[in-house]
C-alpha cells in the first residue's frame, strides 16, 4: 500500500497494461517525450520506447482514426485526446466509427481501444478547455464510458478498459490529477459497470461522478455533522455499462435520490438515472429525485465565476437539507 496521486496512477495504470501486453500501444499529442501536458504520462516513453509510446501531430482525427485502424487489426491502442473538449473536432470517430462498425458489419469487426482524456472544470481555462463531456459519449450506443474519482480506481478501471473488447472513453478529471489516495501494491484490475458505495447512509442517496465524488462525500459529512442527515454516497464510476442495481438498491434503502453532475443541465447522466429511478424505483421514493448540476451555460474562466457554477459541497448540502425539510 502506498499513497499515489491520481496523475501518477494514470502512469502506473498505463505501465501496468503495457508491461502485461505488447499489443498495448499509446499515442497522443505531447504524450511521449514531453510526458503529457498534465504530466500524467511521464516516463512511459523511456520505459516502453518510441515504437510503443508515440507523439503525434495536432491531428485529433488522425489520432482516433489511427487508434481505430490499429484496434481493428490486432493492437490495443490507448489514445490520448488532451482535453475532452477536443472531442468536438474528432467526434466522427467517437460517434460514427468506433461504436458502429461492429454492428454495421454484423459482428465482423472489432474495436478494442481506450480514449483517455482530460475532462472537467476547475482550472480556470474557460469554456473550451473545461467541459464535462461524459453525456456526449453516454448517448451513443456501442461505447463504454468510464470516469474514475480516485487513484486506485484510475488504475483498476484503466486496466479494465484496456482489457475490454469494446471502445472505452476514459475520462480523467483534470482537477483530480493532484489529489492523492492509498493504492495497493501489485496489479490492480477493476470491473467496468460497477458503481461503488463510498459512504453508507440511510436518509438519502447521492450519486456522483469524478470530481463531484469528493464534493458529495464532503457534503455528506457536513449533513451528518450539522443536520443529522445520513447520506449514502454512490460513486457511479461507469456510465456505460451503468450499475443501476447498486443505485436502485441504495434508493430502496434511503428512499431519496440526488445526483451531482458537473455537466450543464440538459441531458446530463443524472437525468437518465432519475428516469430509471422514476420507472423502476418510484414506490421506493419518499420525495422527488433532485438533480444538482452546473447551470445550462458555457463555463466562465474567472475563478470566482467558475467556482459559483460548479456544484460545491455547500450547494449539495443545502439542496439535500432543504429537500429533506430539515
Amino acid at each position, binding site marked *: 500500500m502506498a499513497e499515489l496521486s491520481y496523475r501518477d496512477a494514470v502512469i502506473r495504470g498505463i505501465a501496468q497494461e503495457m508491461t502485461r501486453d505488447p499489443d498495448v500501444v499509446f499515442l497522443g499529442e505531447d504524450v511521449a517525450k514531453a510526458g503529457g501536458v498534465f504530466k500524467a504520462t511521464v516516463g512511459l516513453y523511456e520505459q516502453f520506447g518510441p515504437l510503443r509510446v*508515440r507523439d503525434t501531430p495536432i491531428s485529433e482525427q*488522425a489520432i482516433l482514426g489511427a487508434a481505430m485502424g490499429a484496434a481493428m*487489426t490486432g493492437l490495443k491502442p490507448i489514445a490520448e485526446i488532451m482535453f475532452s473538449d477536443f472531442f468536438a473536432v474528432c467526434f466522427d470517430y467517437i460517434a460514427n466509427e468506433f461504436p458502429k462498425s461492429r454492428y454495421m458489419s454484423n459482428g465482423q469487426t472489432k474495436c478494442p481501444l481506450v480514449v483517455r482524456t482530460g475532462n472537467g472544470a476547475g482550472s480556470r481555462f474557460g469554456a473550451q478547455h473545461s467541459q464535462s463531456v461524459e453525456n456526449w459519449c453516454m448517448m451513443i450506443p456501442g461505447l463504454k464510458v468510464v470516469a474514475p474519482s480516485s487513484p486506485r480506481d484510475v488504475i483498476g478501471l484503466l486496466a479494465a478498459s484496456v482489457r475490454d473488447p469494446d471502445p472505452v472513453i476514459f475520462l480523467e478529471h483534470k482537477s483530480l490529477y493532484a489529489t492523492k489516495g492509498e493504492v495497493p501494491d501489485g496489479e490492480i484490475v477493476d470491473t467496468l459497470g460497477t458503481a461503488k458505495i463510498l459512504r453508507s447512509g440511510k436518509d438519502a442517496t447521492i450519486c456522483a461522478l469524478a470530481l463531484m465524488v469528493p464534493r458529495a462525500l464532503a457534503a455528506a459529512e457536513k449533513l451528518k455533522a450539522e443536520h443529522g442527515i445520513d447520506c449514502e454516497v454512490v460513486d457511479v464510476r461507469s456510465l456505460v455499462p451503468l450499475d443501476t442495481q447498486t443505485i436502485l438498491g441504495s434508493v430502496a434503502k434511503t428512499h431519496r435520490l440526488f445526483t451531482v453532475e458537473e455537466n450543464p443541465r440538459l441531458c446530463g447522466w443524472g437525468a437518465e438515472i432519475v428516469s430509471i429511478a422514476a420507472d423502476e424505483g418510484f414506490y421506493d421514493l419518499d420525495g422527488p429525485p433532485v438533480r444538482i448540476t452546473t447551470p445550462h451555460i458555457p463555463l466562465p474562466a474567472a475563478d470566482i465565476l467558475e467556482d459559483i457554477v460548479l456544484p460545491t459541497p455547500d450547494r449539495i448540502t443545502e439542496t439535500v437539507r432543504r429537500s429533506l425539510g430539515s
Partner: protein
Amino acid sequence: MATAKDRAQAKAGSGLNDDIGEQKRLALYRSQVRLREAEQRAYDLFLQNLVKGTSHLSLGQEAIAAGFAEAMQKGDLSFCTYRGHAHTLARGVPVEKVLGELMQRDNGLMRGKGGSMHLTSEEHGVMGSYAIIGAHLPIACGAAWRAQYKGDKDVSVCFFGDGTTNIGAFHEALNFAAVWKLPVIFVCENNLYMEYTPIADVTAVPHPAADRAGSYGLERIVIDGNDADECYRTAQKAFAKARAGEGPSLIECMTYRHSGHSRADPAKYRPEGELEKWKLRDPIKIYRERLKQFGVSDADIAAIDASVRKEVDEATEACKAAPNPPLDILTTDVYADGGWAWRN
C-alpha cells in the same frame, strides 16, 4: 479457340509491352466486366424497387478497383467509401453477398445491418466502407501502423473520391502517414465531380489529390484511371514501396462515373457531350480492344462475359429468393459480448 502459345506468337514482334502477362490480363478483364455487370444489375434492381435505400455506383470507374485489387496479395487490406461495391467485389466477395446487402436481405454481406454504404468483408480483407467523407484515411493509417509495429508485410489501401481531398481528415492522414512512414496507399478516384459540383469549381489546384502530394513530401502521381493496366502497374510500384518500408503513396486516378452521384441523381449538371466523350474511353471498351491486340479471340472474350453474366444472374435470383433479415439480429453485436446491454 486460340491457345496461349498462339497468342504469344501473335503478339511477338507487335511492339506491345507485355509486362502484365496473359493470365493477369484476363483476370483484369474479368474483374472489370464483373464489376460492370454487378453495378448495372444493382441499378436495374433499383428500378424494380428491389434495391432499397441509397446506392452509389462505380459504373465507368471499374479499372481502378480491378487494377488495384489484382495487385494486392492475400492479407492486404482495402478501406472503401460509400461508393464501395466495386472495391468489395474486386477482392473476391461473391456478387450474391453484395447484391443481397443492397437488397437488404438475410443473405447480404452484413445481413442488412449495414447496407450499401458499409460493405465489409473481413475475410476478404475488405475492412469496411465508410460513409463519412475522409473518415477511413486515418483508419487505414492505423491498420498500416499495426503492420509496421508488428512487422507484418500487409499493405493498407484506402480508396476515396476527389471530394475527399478537401476535408480535414485527408490532410491529417497524409501528414500522419508520411511522418510515420506507414505502409499505406491512398487512391483518389477523381471522377471530376464531388457529388453534384465539379471538383474544379471548389478546389484551389487542378489535381485535387496529386497537387497536394508535395505538401506531405510525397511524389505527385496522376494516372489514367480508365486503363486497368496503368492502374495495376502503378499499384505494383506503390505496393513494393510500402512493403520495403519506404512509406505511403498518394495516387490520383483520372476517371468518370457514367451514372449520377447516387441513385437519386440523374446527373443533369453535366455539360452536353461530356458523358459521351468519356464513354469513348470506357475502361471495359479500352480493355477489350487491348485483349484483341494481344490476340485474345472474340469467342474467348464472349466466354468471359457469359460466365460473369451467369454469376450475376444466379446471384440475382438467389437474392430475390432470400428472406428478409430476422428481427432477432436487431440487438446483436452492439457490444463485443454479442448483445446490446448498457446496464445491469
